């Protein structure tokens, strides 16, 4: 059987696979409803949006509720380094739609919202065209909603609030969407890659996914051919970097999991398995599946300052700890990066990043804090260099010895 079941079919450059070809290639779904949820449990499929929650359990939490329910297929993909969701929607829209329809059936959702990032025009067009090829009974239940361009737009309570009242800001929980979401109905919010994987599991079973399942990885940064790679669960990091053309020059560290993920020293990273649970066991997170070697001519401190500044700017601005904490961390990092650190800056970064997690309505502050903590470890020497020399070393090659 194929090693790339999600992206199999016509050449990706041909664009979206038409409905007839999709159906001829994959055949109809064999599992649905409670049987499919059992198969999802057996598959151990984890959500591919970033949090990695077990998909079977998530579906069950909505399926067990009373009254009308809803589904949001989450294709907001606000993570700047991730491209896999938009590629999947562009190339295999019917696999995503199959997954959405199956999920809606299994959890008892009448209404399906395809929540697609406003900047992902090609993906939205492909999904719209694919929708026109679906039976009228399906079309009547499905609508497209375009997520505002912002990092937090894809957060599940933000998605719910956008669908409900046009504001893509996270909400305080509880209630969580599975309790009260779209129109107050219990709502399943599921990433589009997770839905596509569920559509394959509906055809091939949970045991198949457990042994032969794949995930989409965006390989970017210092690689020869940045792009999306579909690879079996558990593939070592080094292999996906090779498949993206390898890294020119030496690499000191990689960013794993996107801006919400963390830095990993290259020596440690190459052998890490791209597998949600096994990676968690090593103290790292798969996140949304980003693998980004840091270019050799970039400074880890400066790069972290840049990313955290972006994240601070992307705060929804609703929660004090996120606004002030992330903001102060970003400012401190920038100051260190340009060699203007103040006494105790490092201690402050350490304390603030430890105090932040769990103190926002959503996990935005947790993500930024985690990235900083990984940087403090992986780039300890670079921090020391910046703090001691006070000179701007942003362009100092990471691999060079003491200048």
């Amino acid at each position: 059987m194929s090693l790339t079941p999600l992206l199999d079919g016509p050449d990706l450059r041909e664009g979206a696979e038409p409905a007839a070809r999709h159906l001829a290639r994959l055949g109809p779904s064999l599992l649905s409803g409670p049987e499919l949820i059992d198969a999802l449990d057996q598959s151990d499929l984890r959500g591919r949006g970033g949090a990695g929650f077990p998909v079977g359990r998530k579906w069950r939490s909505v399926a067990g509720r009373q009254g009308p329910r809803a589904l949001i297929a989450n294709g907001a993909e606000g993570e700047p380094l991730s491209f896999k969701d938009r590629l999947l929607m562009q190339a295999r829209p019917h696999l995503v739609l199959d997954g959405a329809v199956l999920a809606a059936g299994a959890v008892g959702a009448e209404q399906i919202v395809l929540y697609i990032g406003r900047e992902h025009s090609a993906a939205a067009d492909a999904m719209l065209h694919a929708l026109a090829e679906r039976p009228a009974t399906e079309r009547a239940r499905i609508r497209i909603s375009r997520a505002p361009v912002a990092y937090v737009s894809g957060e599940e309570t933000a998605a719910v609030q956008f669908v409900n009242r046009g504001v893509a800001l996270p909400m305080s929980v509880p209630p969580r969407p599975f309790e009260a979401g779209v129109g107050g109905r219990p709502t399943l919010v599921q990433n589009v890659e997770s839905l596509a994987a569920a559509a394959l599991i509906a055809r091939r079973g949970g045991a198949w996914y457990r042994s032969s399942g794949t995930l989409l990885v965006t390989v970017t940064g210092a690689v020869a051919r940045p792009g999306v790679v579909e690879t079996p669960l558990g593939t070592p990091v080094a292999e996906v970097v090779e498949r993206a053309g390898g890294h020119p020059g030496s690499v000191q560290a990689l960013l794993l999991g996107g801006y919400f993920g963390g830095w990993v020293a290259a020596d440690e990273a190459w052998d890490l398995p791209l597998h949600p649970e096994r990676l968690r066991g090593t103290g790292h997170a798969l996140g949304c599946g980003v693998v980004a070697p840091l270019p050799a001519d970039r400074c880890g401190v400066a790069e972290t300052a840049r990313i955290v500044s972006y994240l601070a700017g992307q705060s929804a601005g609703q929660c004090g700890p996120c606004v002030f904490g992330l903001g102060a961390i970003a400012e401190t990092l920038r100051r260190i990066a340009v060699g203007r650190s103040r006494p105790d800056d490092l201690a402050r970064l350490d304390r603030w990043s430890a105090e932040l997690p769990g103190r926002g309505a959503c996990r935005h502050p947790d993500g930024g804090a985690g990235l900083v903590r990984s940087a403090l470890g992986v780039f300890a020497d670079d921090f020391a260099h910046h703090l001691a020399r006070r000179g701007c070393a942003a362009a100092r090659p990471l691999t060079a010895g003491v200048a």
Partner: protein
Amino acid sequence: MSEPSARPWDGARGVARVGTSRVSLGIDRIRCDGRGYCAELLPEMIRLDDWGYPIVSSERVPDHLLDHARRAVAACPLLAIRLAADGRSR
């Protein structure tokens, strides 16, 4: 609403640790504006960060602090803090 400055129980707290309730503290982070009353009233479980926003213990509230916890909840002008059964608060 109780005055944060009036603390008749000062000095008598944290002595008798008999049991642990089944409730924990949760903050609605969007509502919370960092007024700081809660940390004044329940310093055993709540402290403030550098900007005045609460850092709350995730532990269950010990029995001997329950009254103080209830007072902290009642004192919040923004109704941002609550006592909730396990797993229902953040």
